[in-house]
């Protein structure tokens, strides 16, 4: 992990499983989930379902949503909002890919640190 102004480099993109997610703990703050869609896009959300804090990283990823493993809420990877009937929102951390590396927004990643 390296530090670069407003972006944090958290590693190469090939470390993400296809259609899956990995986690990124933030000491003193909230764990972040990094998702990988079928189209190869990468998104990051706080790893905490707005319903009852289920670990979203463990859900099934399809299209640009993840289905929470605990009670099947569907959460948009783009907006962090619960879709369908459900209501709630989880923080989104901006991501960009540069030269095969995943960079996440530093301020947003550290927002939960007290």
């Amino acid at each position, binding site marked *: *992990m390296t530090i670069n102004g407003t972006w944090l480099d958290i590693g190469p993109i090939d470390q993400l499983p296809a259609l899956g997610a990995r986690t990124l703990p933030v000491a003193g703050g909230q764990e972040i989930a990094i998702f990988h869609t079928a189209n190869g896009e990468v998104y990051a959300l706080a790893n905490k379902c707005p319903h009852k804090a289920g670990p979203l990283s463990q859900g099934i990823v399809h299209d640009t949503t993840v289905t929470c493993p*605990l009670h099947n809420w*569907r959460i948009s990877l783009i907006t962090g909002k619960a879709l369908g009937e459900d209501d709630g929102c989880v923080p989104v951390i901006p991501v960009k890919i540069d030269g095969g590396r995943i960079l996440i927004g530093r301020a947003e*990643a550290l927002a939960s640190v007290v």
Partner: protein
Amino acid sequence: MTTGKPHLIVIGNGMAGCRAVEEILARDPDRYRITIFGAEPRVNYNRIMLSPLLAGEKSFEDIVINDLGWYADNGIELVSGDPVVAIDRVNLMVNSRSGRTEHYDKLILATGSDPFIIPVPGHDLQGVVTFRDMDDVGAMLRAADAGGEAIVIGGGLLGLEAAHGLTLRGMKVTVLHIMPTLMERQLDEAAGFLLKAALEGRGQTILTGADTAEIYGQGRVEGIRLKDGRDIPASLVVMAVGIRPNVKLARDAGLAIGRGIHVDDHLVTSDEHILAVGECVEHNGLVYGLVAPIWEMCRSLADGLIATPSGYTGSVTSTKLKVSGIDVFSAGDFSGGEGCEDIVMRDASRGVYKRVIVKDDKLIGAVLYGDTQDGNWYFDLLKRAEDVSEIRDALIFGQAFASGGGASANPNVAVAAMADDAEVCGCNGVSKGKVVTAINDGACTLDAVRACTKASASCGSCTGMVEGLLAITMGEAYAGTRDVSTVCKCTSFTHEDVRRNIIEKGLKFIPEVMQQLHWTTPDGCASCRPALNYYLLCAWPGDYVDDNQSRFVNERMHANIQKDGTYSVVPRMWGGITNPRELRAIADVVDKFNAPLVKVTGGQRLDIFGIKKEDLPAVWADLNAAGMVSGHAYGKTLRTVKTCVGSDWCRFGTQDSTGLGVKIERMTWGSFMPHKFKIAVSGCPRNCAESTIKDFGIICVDSGYELSIGGNGGIKVRVTDLLCKVVTEQEAMDYCAAFIQLYREEARYLDRTAPWVERVGLDYITARIVDDAVGREALRGRFLHSQSFMQDDPWAKRVAGEDYKLHQHLAEIRPVAKELVSV
């Protein structure tokens, strides 16, 4: 100098450099004295045609854009094979490698891109090439002359075109792609899958998820080793993993650069005397790797330099793959998401997949495979951001259809326009006339039409047309599309349809099922993906490669997730029997990992709670060491075989119920099923193991074994139905295996045996398992065959390192005061 005209120097004799000069000359042929420096020792040629050149479809003469005559006629001095090595912005001079210096009044940088070379060991061996210019093609052709094996690293546009060319030149080609699907930046998963199948059909080997560890060889390439240990021999390695804007000169000269050379809307760099164009520039944060945007840039550059400045505003791009016989097109944004609506059409018989993405009544993306005829039309709608709400329903059928119908466009119109003898159902050769006659004769539902004409009764791809005919023929009287439970909202097929088609058509992959059965979503949902994964696993034992990402968390992690995100671990205790060694190992694990709770479950075994996902492999390693394997307490699998003490100890026991329970568990463990499956063996009718509320229950009696099925102790309690009575232990086991296989093959995913037995009826099960001895034996045989692939402990595999990433964090962020510490 020779004339009084200002001197324009262009660095880069490629696509952008020469096109910029053409645009300038078209506006004012006399404005500048022009010199072009080119690193390549040749005239300006069409780089995108290197692919057909490699494939043997074109010669170099065919792809030259401007020959020497053009330079001469326009008074352009071409300095080829002599790259510029430095720019002196203070004195407005450029220096070339041969030592030539020239003064400029205006300078255009058109240096293109450099192919990216992954710095793995061996990347500098002889025989490792890139795919960018004529020299690269020459090297590839020389290698191809010697024949043998080639590896292309990179399954994007460029890599696949290289692979295609080398295949046509007689090499045996393997494509290594790091991502799960080919061309993932241009195609979605479904289209990527079809493309992969088509290329494999042409003899290429395509390895996705393939990560190169090293290229090896003594001075020359001999092969590649992947990170997963696989070894592939090759005498040629083509790296086609991406390009980087060539900004070296600009950087050395101190111009503003980001990923590319920064330019404004008139292609002027941070130095007003210097412009830049093509792949080397970054405009508005974007860099481009295709020619269409470059042509637009060249127009704006010339307008700004000579005529009325028009200003470049960025480009929307589309992609086509130049592999003859394989039609692929994509444009715009197909990542989906909020407010986006996917319209998917799949025509399996023609091998067509089309997907358009609509947002706020506008087309924002399109992916076409197999039929790209409408690509340009979609691209045009997209670029013009046209309102498509009027033609929304007909959009996916293409331009001819959508524009023909105008505002009233409706898929049924097309069906109505078909001739009476036109074929509706290809599988069974049923014409439109026949279907209409059947409807007029009283077949007023889809199922009725299927029953009397067979139309739509096989693959089902004409279901939409038959429903259209029902609607047109019956008008108001048609009750609407049928009311049967489909697998999920992604498809109109039932579970039974899907299972039948998987077998009949020999479908072996999830994307293949989705394509053949006309899924209306690109990659399914959390309901259908696990179901399809199970159906394929059941249909092709030993053959199907499980799709881990189509499994619910518990099955993916081989443990039960808890409300706080930790996991519980339940090792198998065969028949509920344990011993001091197992108990010690469990106690040690509880101590070592500080498990907050260990509990006896309702299934006669021990459950260790509160284990973190990172610790799971270590916990399993300790349990494995004591001889214990996964209890599958998390799976749609065989769960437990409960037993009572039986004849060995109990004063009422009639048979060895414990021993039989252990034998049955040894036979059935590891089996995946439509839902969880529980078995119990009680030693007498007092039924201490609760056999009569299990999926398969055995009650021992003096004269043998009473077998009963379809019990459930869960949400809705159901007592088992008595299936039959058998005399020997072996028979009890054989019937059990046959019953499980019937359930595996015929129940819907997520049906426990209780609702399944109620739906199909006890008589049906009796006929299949009790009355039909040959059928029973065949079912049992298929179960045991399938079990021969299922009975290895999933925990042991994880302990050995399989899917280790699932258990590890990607990285860790540790903010210390204001600083960050990396891990």
